[in-house]
């Protein structure tokens, strides 16, 4: 089960500021449970952010990205009412896409 992302996209002047908070454990594979069994790695590998079907950011991630990954960046060419979509895929091939309207 994947959890919904929290995404904000706000027009500031002629730039859109995007803030993305993903709910994901980002397990490193280095941790152990109390009884000593290794917790297998479980982490997001790729992330794509699109504004109205145009890619505005792509990212690849390793285990050193914090639990519940956060990303913030800005891009040109956006307008109020446009759609920002964020898609991630993890190492279990789980994937999730959430969208938000630029305000």
């Amino acid at each position, binding site marked *: 089960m994947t959890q919904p992302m929290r995404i904000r996209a706000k027009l500031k002047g002629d730039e859109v500021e995007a803030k993305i908070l993903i709910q994901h454990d980002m397990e490193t594979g280095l941790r152990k449970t109390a009884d000593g069994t290794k917790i297998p790695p479980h982490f997001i590998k790729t992330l794509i952010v699109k504004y109205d079907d145009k890619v*505005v950011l792509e990212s690849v991630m*390793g285990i050193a*990205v914090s639990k519940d990954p956060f990303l913030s960046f800005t891009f040109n060419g956006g307008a109020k009412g446009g759609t920002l979509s964020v898609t991630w895929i993890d190492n279990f091939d789980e994937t999730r896409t959430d969208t938000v309207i630029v305000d």
Partner: protein
Amino acid sequence: MREHIGNSNSEVLNQSVSKRDFLRLSAAFSLAVVAGFYGIKDVAAAEWKASNFNAKSLKDTLKELGAEGYTISKDVAVDSAEIAENGAVVPVSISSAIPNTEYMAILVEKNPNPLATAFTIPAGTIANIKTRIKMGETSNVLALVKANGKWFAASKEIKVTLGGCGG
């Protein structure tokens, strides 16, 4: 990639066309077609490559990325607090004022695998990204930037009082 195609090609010409050579050649050609379609740099940057993330030293990671010849640039910056109290959540910003910045990466020198994350920056996106990373111990953190086919970097030491790599 072109070299690789060239090599397979001449091998095929010099020897009899075995099945393996044929497969190799067709693989090389399909790669070339894919690379030609997307543009080689896009394929390389957007792809999750195990060899980049599994490299165990800064030197090896830079080698895997093909970024060994980087130059330190004042137009690249790593921004963070001087001291991170919790290594599991270290807020870091990386930015580049170099025109045509197409790729940025965050490398933590003393993490078990230095490459933390990397970004492909299309035209129109500002090369300034804020995220949160894990750090096992106090370390230099490198912002690595590719622009116009050249590599640039900036480095900052971030002190960690409590490591964040578990265990």
